[in-house]
């Protein structure tokens, strides 16, 4: 325990013990700050075996060796004292594992680095914590001999330089004092203290004071590993050493938006264009806006032209003249790595920092590196509607000024959104340290022209990163999925009997049996994925005496329970769809309906809405009728069970025969559909194996297997949907709820066509869905069976997504479904999990005269409004489940990595296909895991041939390795956490044909 003493200093010493300076606040006020400092004599020098300081030096493990280190210029050993600019400009050198002389880090330097650049300061701190470096921090400002006071007319810079020189001189003297010459012994050769500085004036002054001083280059040249280290030297321009801080107001970074009247009139006149802003996920400095006036989206390059638009905003753009049109960059520009040295405060105060950022960015956006294909280019001149919502973010720990966990001071920090489409958000918080490593929700408040980043505020913490709850909730929030439990008003709409509800005995008076067909005796079964609880469809088929076949699709009669204009109905309409995550289902309807009353479970009577066809043995429809019914399913199969049953020749019972009959028709239906030009699309689907239902730890990932029975169910659902669509469209030509898939614009396929042509010599005919299907079938690589699937996946990405629409609001000739090659289509078969189906049910019930149509479904605008919501929810739900799968794939990978590590098998490696090439990276697709990844190369050594989609990488030995699109490579997959934000992400590196670990 240190003794407690009171140090009293005479007033005359106040010059040294008090630090006085003036500070300008953000508001422009000037305040005088007076700080007391305690000068002491027991600040340790940090050199091993120092007579005087040994007690003050803790921890002893980080002490510097007594005799310094070897250097060709200093045979007696030396210590290095770098000045601030060395840290500011040569951090890469200092971080190198080859650069390891004993460094004495002065407090003056640390503080100046912190003052100049927080990110560099954080790197410096990480450097200090490194084990293989010997660094001693000397608190020179608190040692009475080395403390300096700023003199009059002395700049802070000069003061600091003087402080550094004083400390160097003190060290020299200190070592001599503690190694007095002993009589009879040759005087010990003492190591030298070398002041490293790039500032020539400072070197001169140091030499005048008898100190050894060198420039970094000169110092490194004398080192053992100089060739490698010299590469790391940053060439610095003279003017960059001392950034001048321009006084005065804030710098304007963006142009102001035009007044809204100008925007509206401009759009009307055709001078300006309105559209949704889409950020580019590979390059944060690029975005695009699809506008009706051009076939290609309008490209926005650089921050200034994107002018504060965030993903999803409705913006107005001005298009530049043709001569300024550019092509999109073919490079991956990652916000995190490019801007790691960007300072949080910079937007407000520091203009010099801005310049640096701008310079790096302008390098990136400069047009040299662009390929030739030009695209309309423009800039944002106004925002019609912001798409701001709370975003799930991580706090960037490098942007923190203090990481003391109890610090309550207000700090400005960066929050990095989980979505790569968004810029970093600046926020001020008092609890920054405790938020590190957590997922938090941040709202954007505003984005001023003077601020590089949007400003936001903390909403709430979701929980620790990678905890399942936090990840799940953040996913739901990120995709705007309503997940609150159902309210009382909604639950009150359920039948009073609850779980005990049953179909009442058949009678003429019971409302349930009104105009319902009794199909309880028919052999009906359902086929679903394993573990399915919400069974909304069941099937049957039987031969008719006239040789034809009767097939029936029975859909849960949700509209019997969910009536229009009830709280439950409006809730379902706003939820739009059930969302399936890997370990959770967010229901559209209360689970009593979804998993019990409406679920067509076996052996119980359930209400259904049936579509019954009479088909010829060639699967031509003779007639179709729709009816409300009561069914009793005889069995609930999984796809696998149904398949086994069908394939087992010993099974001859009614159910099996029914499945076989259904299957034979399904095959013919599919053939017909294909003949009509339906596309056989592929999407990467994987299945997550969970350890057990409670722990939900993923064990492994495998690709989903598709069986014949999957196709069986699919064909009948399509048949039912198409038949229903025709029926409701006939009856309600103005308001029928339909679904369409627009044919994709040909330009969407241009790139894929070009790649296929150049790489494989294959052509893709996109003139119609039929010709596309045919040419897709021809895309076969005899050596690579997976190639076809890959092309299909890539082709699918070129297409538009299907959407619900109201038949009265679009032209009749755009009703078609491109992918299914059907002239008309709707969704009817899953009313438990999709709201559009509920609407279709109501319309069909009205069409067959079962019940009058609710007045709201007669109104075109009302239907349109509902379908807009449903479309959006549907898209979000898909993205949410994909993200959920991705998260679990990540967890599974991590598990596999750990198991591999335990067994010594090394990292996880998988085969992958190259799907995109960039100047500095490759986009790859790992089909076994269904994930896409990005391989980035840090060195700028590779040759990129944009025309041929080829990247050639120099190999350490032998000729350069060429990699092009569609090549098969082996990648190493690791799950790593971002050091700053704790955001986990999958990192891929090449293993073969070349190992890119160090590239």
């Amino acid at each position, binding site marked *: 325990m240190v003794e*407690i003493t*009171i140090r009293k200093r005479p007033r005359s010493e106040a010059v040294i013990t008090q630090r006085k300076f003036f500070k300008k*606040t953000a508001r422009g006020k000037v*305040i005088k*700050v007076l700080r*007391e400092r305690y000068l002491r004599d027991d600040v340790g020098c940090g050199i091993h075996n120092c007579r005087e300081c040994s007690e003050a030096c803790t921890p002893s493990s980080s002490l510097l060796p007594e005799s310094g280190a070897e250097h060709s210029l200093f045979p007696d050993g030396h210590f290095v004292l770098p000045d601030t600019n060395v840290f500011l400009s040569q951090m890469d050198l200092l971080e190198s594992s080859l650069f390891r002389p004993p460094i004495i880090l002065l407090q003056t330097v640390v503080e100046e680095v912190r003052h100049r650049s927080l990110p560099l300061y954080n790197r410096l701190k990480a450097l200090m914590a490194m084990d293989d470096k010997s660094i001693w921090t000397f608190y020179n400002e608190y040692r009475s001999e080395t403390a300096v006071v700023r003199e009059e007319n002395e700049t802070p810079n000069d003061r600091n330089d003087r402080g550094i020189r004083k400390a160097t001189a003190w060290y020299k003297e200190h070592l001599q004092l503690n190694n007095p010459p002993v009589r009879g012994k040759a005087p010990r050769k003492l190591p030298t203290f070398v002041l490293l500085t790039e500032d020539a004036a400072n070197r001169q002054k140091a030499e005048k004071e008898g100190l050894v001083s060198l420039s970094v280059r000169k110092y490194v040249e004398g080192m053992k590993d100089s060739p490698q280290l010299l590469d790391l030297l940053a060439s610095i321009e003279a003017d960059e050493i001392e950034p001048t801080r321009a006084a005065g107001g804030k710098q304007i970074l963006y142009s102001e938006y035009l007044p809204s009247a100008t925007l509206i009139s401009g759009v009307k006149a055709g001078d300006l264009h309105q559209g949704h802003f889409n950020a580019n996920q590979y390059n944060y400095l690029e975005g695009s806006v699809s506008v009706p006036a051009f076939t290609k989206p309008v490209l926005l390059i650089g921050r200034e032209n994107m002018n504060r638009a965030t993903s999803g905003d409705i913006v107005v753009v001005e298009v530049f003249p043709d001569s300024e049109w550019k092509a999109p960059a073919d490079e991956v520009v990652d916000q995190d790595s490019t801007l790691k040295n960007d300072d949080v405060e910079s937007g407000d105060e520091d203009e010099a920092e801005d310049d640096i950022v701008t310079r790096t960015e302008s390098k990136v956006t400069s047009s040299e590196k662009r390929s030739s294909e030009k695209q309309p280019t423009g800039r944002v001149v106004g925002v019609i509607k912001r798409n701001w919502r709370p975003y799930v973010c991580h706090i960037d720990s490098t942007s923190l000024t203090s990481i*003391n966990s*109890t610090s309550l001071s207000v700090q400005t920090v960066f929050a990095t959104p989980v979505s790569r489409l968004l810029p970093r958000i600046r926020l001020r918080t008092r609890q920054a340290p405790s938020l590190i490593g957590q997922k938090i929700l941040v709202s954007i408040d505003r984005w001023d022209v003077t601020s590089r980043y949007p400003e936001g505020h903390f909403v709430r913490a979701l929980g620790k990163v990678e905890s399942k709850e936090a990840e799940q909730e953040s996913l739901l929030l990120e995709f705007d999925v309503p997940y609150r439990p159902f309210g009382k008003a909604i639950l009150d709409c359920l039948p009073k009997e609850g779980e005990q509800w049953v179909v009442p005995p058949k009678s003429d008076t019971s409302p349930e049996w009104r105009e319902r067909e009794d199909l309880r005796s028919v052999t009906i079964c359902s086929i679903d994925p394993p573990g399915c609880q919400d069974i909304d469809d069941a099937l049957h088929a039987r031969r008719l005496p006239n040789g034809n076949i009767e097939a029936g699709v029975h859909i849960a009669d949700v509209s019997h329970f969910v009536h229009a204009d009830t709280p439950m109905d409006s809730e379902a309409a706003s939820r739009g769809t059930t969302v399936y995550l890997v370990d959770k289902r967010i229901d559209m309807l209360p689970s009593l309906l979804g998993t019990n009353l409406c679920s067509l479970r076996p052996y119980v009577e359930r209400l259904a809405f049936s579509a019954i066809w009479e088909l010829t043995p060639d699967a031509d429809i003779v007639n179709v009728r729709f009816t409300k019914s009561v069914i009793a399913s005889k069995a609930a199969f999984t796809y696998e069970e149904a398949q086994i049953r069908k394939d087992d020749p010993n099974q001859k019972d009614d159910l099996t025969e029914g499945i076989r009959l259904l299957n034979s028709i399904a095959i013919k239906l599919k053939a017909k559909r294909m003949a009509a030009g339906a596309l056989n699309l592929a999407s990467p689907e994987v299945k997550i194996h969970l350890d057990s239902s409670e722990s939900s730890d993923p064990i492994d990932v495998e690709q989903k297997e598709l069986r014949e029975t999957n196709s069986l169910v699919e064909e009948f659902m399509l048949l039912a949907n198409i038949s229903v669509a025709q029926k409701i469209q006939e009856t309600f030509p103005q308001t029928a709820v339909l679904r369409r898939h627009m044919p994709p614009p040909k330009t969407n396929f241009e790139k894929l066509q070009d790649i296929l042509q150049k790489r494989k010599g294959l052509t893709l005919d996109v003139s119609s869905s039929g010709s596309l299907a045919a040419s897709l079938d021809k895309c076969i690589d005899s050596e690579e069976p997976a190639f076809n699937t890959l092309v299909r996946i890539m082709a699918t990405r070129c297409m538009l997504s299907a959407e619900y629409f109201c038949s009265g609001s679009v032209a009749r000739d755009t009703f078609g479904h491109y992918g299914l090659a059907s002239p008309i289509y709707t969704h009817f078969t899953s009313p438990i999990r999709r709201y559009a189906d509920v609407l279709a049910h109501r319309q069909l019930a009205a069409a067959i005269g079962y019940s009058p149509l609710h007045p709201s479904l007669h109104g075109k605008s009302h239907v349109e409004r509902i379908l807009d919501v449903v479309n959006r929810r549907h898209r979000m739900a898909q993205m949410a489940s994909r993200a959920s799968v991705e998260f679990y794939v990540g967890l599974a990978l991590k598990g596999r990595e750990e198991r591999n590590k335990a067994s010594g098998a090394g990292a996880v490696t998988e085969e992958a296909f190259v799907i995109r090439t960039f100047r500095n990276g490759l986009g790859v697709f790992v089909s076994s895991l269904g994930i896409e990844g990005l391989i980035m190369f840090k060195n700028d050594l590779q040759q990129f041939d944009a025309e041929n989609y080829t990247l050639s990488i120099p190999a350490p030995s032998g000729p350069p390795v060429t990699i092009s699109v569609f090549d098969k490579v082996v990648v190493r997959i690791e799950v790593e956490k971002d050091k700053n934000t704790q955001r986990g992400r999958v990192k891929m590196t090449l293993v073969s044909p070349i190992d890119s670990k160090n590239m």
Partner: protein
Amino acid sequence: MRSHTFHDRANINVEVVVASFSTGERRKRLRGDKRVLEFAATIKATFEPVIRTSLYPRSQIDIYVQVLQQDGSTLQACINATTLALINAGIPMTDFVCAVTGGVHSTSPMLDLTTLEENDIPHVTVAVMPKTKKVVLVTMETRLHVDRFEEILNLARDAGAILHQEMKEAVLSRSASLIAMAEPVTKGQSRADDDVIVD
């Protein structure tokens, strides 16, 4: 104030005024400011058991604290100043009250914090009566880990004892100078006497 008088002891009235120029940034604190009122209440509560109020029934002791300059540990300074002021005024007390603010930075405890330190680390102000070894005040507005609390409390108590030494010396030297100021009259007379003897 009549209503505040007690028939058996003196009433203690504390008023704290914080000058607007006392901090780096000019900040006007009104008389009714809750923080200032709390400060006053804390000081009052600290001194009530120490001052021998029963010696002055039906009277009032006013303590006016004026903070002219502050840079952290303000409560500590106020309490110590009050102790000295009361002693200087000759008001009987059972003991000194010595206050000190302690904080803890990661694991190392520290005393007498500056504003900069107070903003960033958890801190606790402790007032002790050094002779009787009693703690009269422990106040904390931040969160401090319970494992660190005992260490810091003990440290603050030790520091209180050292403060006591310092304060005692100050009181003694003050008394000495007061006596010295009072003496010249008598001394002058005696010298006159001496003169008489010499002459």
